[in-house]
């Protein structure tokens, strides 16, 4: 089956180009920073609009995740090289996790973010660290209740990933079981040799494209979303944590930048496009990830960037990218490694 573009609308529409033009986006980020720092009285007005934008984006997450995986897997299964691709996926996952974790450790060792802190800052940070623990679950659960990682082993996590009741997983927004279910459904549909296969594939593809269309409309509002979502974040951050944790944040940004550069290099080499095109393609998914703090929300934009702009194979991308988004919380890995590092170094030196 010939797969068409993920976004069913031409991205060259002048209004879309204006909305996602780097200048207007930069302008929006600037306005957001300004409001966040100087006009906090606007927050009560901005936050509900930000929530509306966020909810609209979140609404499309599960359907897109499901339909992308189902149609991607169904198109891949039975093709030569599918097993090889899975092996590569696992290998890439491990390598990337190691690279990302390694970058975190390296920067942590070199920078010792927790040392040389004043006593009062240490007490303050101890609170902040323990209260921000659920932040690391954000990539796993979009809207469902956050599950504590305290006593979860890998096996527990795997057991929880099996959907006992797929409807309750869907209603609870538990992404891992949904992804696993979609994987099996895609495999089964791909191997179906009846005429219903065509219908099911058309339904999955149509669903993906319809929801991508909704996402494409939401791009119009990206500058508004940036202002409404980013301004309160800037305000909150500027208010409390940044000053005592400046060192930590700076080093985290360094570690993240290292990972970003490595990722960009990989994408550049593998896509064989010029660096400017790669950078341009990464703008949208990065911005969405940035303002929403949720890697799954940017999934449709990641798919659009990788397939439409960088011309990676559509069906493989549809399979690999959701799996990586669900399972590979690379940002969280850096953050986790970091937190360990940080709390250790700050307790060792009283």
């Amino acid at each position: 089956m010939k797969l068409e573009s993920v976004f069913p609308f031409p991205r060259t529409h002048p209004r879309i180009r204006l909305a996602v033009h780097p200048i207007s986006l930069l302008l929006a980020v600037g306005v957001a920073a300004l409001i966040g720092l100087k006009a906090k009285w606007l927050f009560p007005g901005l936050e509900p609009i930000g929530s509306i934008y966020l909810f609209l984006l979140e609404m499309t997450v599960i359907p897109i995740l499901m339909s992308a995986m189902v149609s991607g897997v169904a198109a891949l299964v039975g093709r030569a090289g599918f097993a090889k691709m899975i092996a590569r996926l696992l290998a890439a996952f491990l390598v990337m996790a190691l690279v990302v974790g390694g970058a975190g450790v390296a920067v942590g060792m070199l920078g010792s973010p927790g040392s040389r802190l004043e006593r009062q800052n240490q007490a303050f940070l101890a609170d902040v660290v323990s209260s921000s623990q659920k932040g690391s679950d954000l990539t796993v659960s979009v809207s469902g209740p956050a599950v504590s990682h305290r006593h979860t082993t890998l096996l527990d996590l795997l057991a929880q990933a099996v959907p006992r009741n797929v409807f309750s997983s869907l209603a609870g927004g538990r992404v891992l079981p949904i992804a696993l279910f979609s994987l099996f459904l895609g495999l089964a549909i791909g191997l179906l040799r009846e005429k219903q296969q065509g219908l099911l594939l058309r339904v999955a593809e149509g669903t993906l494209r319809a929801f991508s269309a909704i996402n494409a409309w939401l791009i119009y509002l990206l500058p508004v979303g940036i202002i409404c979502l980013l301004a309160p974040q800037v305000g909150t951050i500027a208010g409390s944590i940044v000053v005592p944790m400046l060192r930590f944040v700076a080093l985290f940004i360094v570690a993240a930048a290292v990972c970003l550069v490595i990722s960009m290099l990989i994408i550049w080499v593998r896509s064989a496009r010029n660096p400017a095109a790669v950078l341009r393609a990464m703008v949208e998914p990065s911005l969405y990830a940035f303002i929403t703090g949720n890697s799954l929300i940017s999934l449709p934009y990641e798919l659009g960037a990788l397939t439409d702009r960088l011309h990676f194979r559509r069906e493989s991308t549809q399979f690999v990218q959701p799996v990586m988004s669900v399972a590979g919380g690379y940002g969280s890995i850096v953050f986790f490694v970091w937190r360990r590092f940080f709390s250790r170094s700050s307790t060792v030196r009283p």
Partner: protein
Amino acid sequence: MTSPKQQQNLVVGLLTSPWSILVSVAIAVVIGLLFHSVAEVLKPFGLMYLYLLEMTVLPIIVSAIISSVAGLAKSTGMRGFLLRMILVFVAMLVAASVLGTFGGIIGHPGSGLDEQTRNTLGSIVKTQQSQYAPDLELSLSAPPVHRSQPGLIDFIVQIIPQNIFSALASGKALALIFFSILFGIAIGLLRGEQGESLIALFDGFFKAFQKIIAWLMVVLPFGLICLLADQIASTGFHILLAMLKFILIFYAVGLIVVLIDIAIIWQRSRESLGTVMRALLDPIIVSLVTRSSFATLPTAIKALEQKLGFYERSTNLFLSLGITLGRFGNIIYFAVAALFVAQLYGVGMDPSRYAIVVIGSLFGGIATAGASGIATLNLLSIVLGPLGLPLEAVLIIFIAIDAIADPLRTLLIIITNMAANALIVPKTDPLNRRQTVAARLPGATIEEHADLISRIRKRGELVVLGGARPFPPVCAPGIEGLHEGSGVEQASGIAAALGVKLRLDLRPLSPAELVLALKEGGGDLLLGESNARSVFGEELAYTEPYLTSKDAILLTKACLAEVKSMTDGGKTSFKTFSRHVGVVENSVHARIWKRIFPAGKVREYQTVVEMVDSVLNGEVQAAFSTEVELRYWIAKRPRWSASASCLGFSNLPAEYRFAVATSDVLSLPALNEIIADLKSRISPILPAYVGEQ
């Protein structure tokens, strides 16, 4: 003697007639007033019935809105319709709110109550209080407590479903409607097969759930008895007396609105008042008794579409949307109730406070979307809050009389939405439609399109369009390039009945192109795939099904079970059969199946008799022919008849119809008459029809 089928139809007709509904209401009243214990026993059955109805609500709303919005988004005239819909809808919402407020101002439901009534209300609250809400205090003279109310923006935030599936699980109707509209537009704008498949899928869901509703309507009289008897038994009369003035005023306002609605529907439908009243009887009674506007939705749709002839697709869309958002009954009730509470507390009202009542009851009413019963009453706080009046204190009174108020609220929602629908949606008037279709065709005039039959007679030729693809058993190339099949036979039958020649015009076109060709007057009837409404949709009109000699596969019973587990409907591939299969030489089937099966797997026989024999002897696994032919020969041979228990058929369950352009819809009765006549003449002479040996 009547056949079992006819008896069944008689029973269904009897149970669904308005009279049996009225009779069951009467029975329920008797049971409710005189036999409380029986009412108690019936209660769970009534609830079961209600739950079954409610079960279908969300699927119907979601599927109806998605498929109709998608259909509208596909069509070009959507913008005008939407604008009209929004204007009428908003105007009617405001009108309902203003009417309710006026009723409250003129009627003074809460002021001028005598001392005894006030005492009764106070004591009711005290006794009810322990039952429902022990922490609430009612004092009619205490200053009202101010409460902070959720604003408009929070209301909008709630409309957006963060997770569609959790919205489905918790039945958030507003959020689901928002999603369905958005998804419907997105599907409608998708090009190609995917959009079509999704529309067909949701349309299928909608039709399936309508089917379930149709079954439930058959047992409606029993459901009514069970539901109503308990309601009547559980309503106390002393509360009713104390609240009599409020109830009377609400009912007076409500009845005025109902009368206005009926007048609107009567005017717009251009039917006699008797027809309109007969059509409205079902939705009125169902809404009064189920007290659920959603459960009444299918009945209301049926009344408007089938009995009053409003345009189907738009009615589906508008009523589903309207019943969810247009909570006219709740709006009117909230306005009257707010004024009742204000007057009860002796709070002074000025124009700005009346405006708050109008706007508050409007939004409060809309916010009750998806809520029912006591949950609805809780939203009264949206009106009372800005007025600084406490809801908690008076909620008990409203709960106590809700069994009396709820039916009218539901009726008002239903009938006002039906009136709004009548104002918005055009009637499926064949004459009007014909004019618009004719106006779009270049060079076409109404006279030319006036009558398909006279047009064919004038031309002396019946032109039947079809796809070039062989489509047995309807139409496939036969001996010497002539086409044969049931569709061809019926078409030639129609041509003979009209006294004209038949011209088959088979073109290698896609379904959409065929529809266009027919619409532009390239032919009179469309053949072949015209049974596939999912392909041609509502763009064409269809005749009654004609007699089809269905494709059939003859198998032994054991083999049939095995094959059925491997195939679906008509799809058969060579993988299905492990051994040889048989066909008759030079038949349509021989050509078709030899193309499908690998060479050497198909065995040809000179006669049907030989072929059937070889199935019985186990030489071939299956035989392909038409069912009429196979059955005829099996009946002829005593040996086969005796062993018929070991023979099975696997059929295509399709019904074939001719399609005509919607501009020719007036000619359908005449065509159907010819088809019915052909069928009645062919049936008794079926053996001759398939040919003697």
